[in-house]
């Protein structure tokens, strides 16, 4: 699951542009990940201000570079 640290987000849309599954909804000042997400990590890597993170079942956050590169 991709988690959003909402107060860091600038709502710039960069993550939306790289998401291959159209899994991010962006409003004027709100962002939400929808059920089309496949945890591919691209949005996590591209976010200029580290707003997004992969969260596992135990609620643990994966550091951005640690996950395997799949692009």
């Amino acid at each position, binding site marked *: 699951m991709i988690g959003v640290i909402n107060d860091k987000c600038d709502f710039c*849309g960069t993550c939306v542009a790289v998401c291959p599954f159209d899994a991010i909804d962006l409003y004027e000042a709100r962002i939400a990940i929808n059920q089309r997400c496949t945890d591919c990590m691209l949005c996590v890597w591209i976010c200029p201000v580290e707003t997004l993170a992969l969260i596992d079942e135990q609620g643990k956050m994966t550091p951005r570079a640690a996950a395997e590169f799949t692009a």
Partner: protein
Amino acid sequence: MQSDYDVIVVGAGPGGSWAAKTAAEKGAQVLLLEKDREVGVPVRCGEAIGTASLRAVCEPEPLPRGIANGISGAVLVAPNGREVVLDWGQEVGAILDRKVFDYELSLMAAAQGVEIRTKAYVYDVIRNGANGNGSISGVRVQHLGKNYDVRAKIVIGADGIESRVGRFAGLRTFTKLKDMESCMQVTLANVTNIDRRYIYLLFGREVAPGGYLWIFPKSETVANVGIGISGEYARHKSAQRYLQEFIDRRFPKAAAVYTVVGGVTCAPTLEKIVADGVMLVGDAAHQINPMSGGGIVTAMLAGKIAGRVAAAAIARDDFSSQSLEPYAQEWHAAQGKNHERLYKIKQAVYKFTDDELNRTAEAVLAKKPEERTLINVFKAALIRHPSLIFDVLKVFMS
């Protein structure tokens, strides 16, 4: 807001305003929708433009208001700190105040009779046909707490990097990670030791891998300081960290008065930028110069062509993709082809090691000052890539 228009333009950036203005000028009834509360805000941009190309795309109108500072040269900084100064001896560029500039463009569109709504978020499109998968015939918009269905013969998606109009229309619009520059910028006050006539571009693996760091002066003491790094590198270390390290080092005393985050698609234009009843313009169509990352003037150019083609299609009463295709062709001839060449050059240059960049700087510095031109910088850089020199020449000739 009526329930029916000839053209709906989604997004009031430079591309959207210019498309709306042009279509209205040529007789179409146009609605321009912007999701934010104000046109021009937030600014997600370094605000640098080339004056000649801006003037050309504005013609016959005069240059809009919103020019903060004239630029007559560039300082290219190699990884080892060596500076190559390219001085054109006259003003060839400018740093804008996009807050003012974008707003002015929207007023120029309004003056042609374009209806504009802000706080108007387009969340879907209306499709023809019983099963809802036919061609597009309008948009669904959320405006001040209410949802509206508004019909149009043509929908122009000028909705920026996060473009969804293209996706709604079934066009493949997403950007590959390596082609996306992950960017951050702060407008700094109290900057010292910069010459306001010059823009500064800094290169190197430690500074900005797969991109560059920029200082664009808006006055003697205020400058946009920003960075773009390729997505390939961003996954190891974010743009924010690179930029913070640079600012701590170079401008520790400066005050940050505006912070922007964003992305720049540095890729060739999307393969398909029209569909039945739909056109994409600007960042939404990947019409940014893939070498420089500049997309203001190119968005306006595309908007101008799209607006004209849309109005002609309305006059013919044919909104099929075939009828809108001249937009794609004209764009390709005007800039799209150039962007393909620039993309090839970018791919080579952004792979350079720091050594290669340092060597390029030395090669240019060995030339007489009057021979230190941008074309000679490219020639020096691509000395080991002779096939690309041809592309450089083509780009500079057009």
